[in-house]
């Protein structure tokens, strides 16, 4: 497992850097009005036989190490470094003017992907793309569900005390507040800073993004994950991303991952020697 994760880390490191380059090379062959890529479709979650494990408070026990089950193979087939938002309904329902901005970013500005600059991915991207390759760990008590991501040591501590989102707070991961609807853990996420991309293709949200995530256990070690994203200034209507999450064996561990630009300016990033200046651990 350890070795696998190291390789996986290297893989993501490589594809993070490769993404802008490959997207740039596409821009030469692809006409300006490019057809949106087709995504990796994710089937709805099968109900798996077996008892859902529970905590003393009666809620499903979400703890452990999780991956989304898109997997390395599917990503490789889709083209590493050119990952088109698995589980999302592409193309996203942009307004004409916001679609132009997406297109501009994809064709001319791919190195502005915040992930390429080591920012945390935001929601739901953090569940979608890094988690295909790098796992996340959930620790849960009666007050919080905490998600610790291997990818760029991102952390979300989600209170379930019925409290409201704060005011005057803008974050990459927004602000998450959770509650239970039966056996489904529902997380309301707001307070985004408006800079996140949804993938490497320039798909984006602004500060009006609002996400409702639903973690529904469908078996002893499986979760059907849905994230409904609305952003009235970017999209004409809400859309939902669906992924299936799979719990890893208990012995598996997070292997810490870090991301540093190691850059002096953005131009280095676009030159081949810029990669040598970058440092991934």
């Amino acid at each position: 497992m350890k070795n696998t994760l190291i390789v996986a880390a290297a893989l993501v490191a490589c594809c993070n850097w490769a993404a802008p380059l490959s997207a740039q090379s596409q821009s030469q062959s692809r006409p300006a009005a490019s057809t949106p890529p087709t995504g990796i479709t994710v089937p709805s979650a099968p109900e798996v036989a077996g008892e859902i494990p529970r905590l003393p408070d009666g809620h499903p026990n979400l703890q452990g190490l999780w991956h989304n089950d898109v997997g390395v193979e599917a990503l490789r087939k889709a083209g590493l470094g050119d990952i088109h938002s698995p589980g999302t309904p592409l193309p996203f329902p942009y307004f004409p003017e916001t679609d132009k901005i997406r297109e501009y970013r994809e064709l001319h500005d791919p190195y502005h992907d915040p992930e390429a600059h080591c920012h945390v991915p935001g929601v739901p991207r953090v569940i979608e793309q890094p988690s295909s390759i790098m796992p996340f760990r959930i620790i849960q008590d009666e007050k919080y569900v905490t998600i610790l991501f291997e990818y760029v040591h991102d952390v979300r501590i989600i209170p379930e005390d019925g409290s409201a989102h704060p005011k005057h707070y803008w974050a990459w991961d927004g602000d998450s507040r959770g509650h239970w609807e039966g056996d489904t853990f529902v997380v309301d996420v707001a307070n985004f800073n408006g800079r996140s991309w949804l993938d490497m293709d320039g798909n984006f949200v602004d500060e009006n993004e609002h996400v409702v995530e639903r973690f529904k256990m469908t078996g002893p070690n499986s979760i059907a994950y849905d994230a409904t994203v609305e952003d009235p200034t970017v999209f004409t209507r809400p859309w939902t991303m669906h992924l299936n999450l799979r719990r890893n064996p208990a012995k598996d561990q997070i292997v810490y991952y870090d991301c540093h630009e190691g850059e002096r300016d953005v131009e280095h990033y676009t030159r081949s020697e810029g990669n040598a200046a970058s440092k991934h651990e």
Partner: protein
Amino acid sequence: MNKPTATMRLAWRLSLLSFALAYISGAATPAHPDYAPPRLSDGTPDFRGIWQARGTAYANIEGHPAENGLSASKSVVIDTPDGKIPYLPEARKQREQNFRDRATADPGANCFQAGVPRAVLLPTPFQIVQSPGNFAFVYTDNHSYRLVEPDALPHDDGIDFFMGDSRGHWEGDTLVVDVTDLGDQTWLDEAGNFHSDQLHVVERYRRLSADTMLYEARMEDPKTYAHPFTIRQMLYRDTRPGARITEDECLEGSDGRWHHLSPYDQKALLGHDYKAELAAESKALAAAAAKQ
């Protein structure tokens, strides 16, 4: 680890004030040798909460005078006669060089994660997340975290991590964490005190009261120190209802200097006017279309 901004300094002073008020009002109960911490359902001591070191040992664990807006600090090294780190001669020279170069040589200037024990001493809070069989420290600074895996799982030797590799067990009501694989890329404070990749830290956490926790870290590094030494720091619980860890990112800017992004300052965070950025992109797009 970070040169505090004016806002951070103000926040820190306010938090010091609130600590002081809490102390005067008697909310911070004195340590009691018989204090029994609350327990989780499996009987392990409950360490959950948001904790923070008081004082300015993060600036120099060997102590420092009042300067640059910082209050003075006594050395937190408890088991050497002069409160100094027992450096080997070569390492002492390196430490002096580090001190002279600290403005640029501090790993914090590269936005590296703080490492252990520096992360615990920082002037920003951390949250202990815990459930039966699970234990994690989540630090505000640079959104670092450490999972404390049980002793039964061996260390991941052979790879270094900024925050090391932590294994823990309980000795009575004390959590003992064995930390290795820290590498040589982190410092102990802002003053250039450092370690090699041979650093081995044994941390001890013990709750003394509802709102206080005693922290000790014994550091052994035969390449750097003549003998092991121990630091001690009191940690205080944030008792405000609804207190939360907030998002912090440390990133190297295009000028090659680190900066922390505050989630409370939308203008600084966005770096530029988002709406203006969109407008500029639309304009560039139109210009590109006109060229064709």
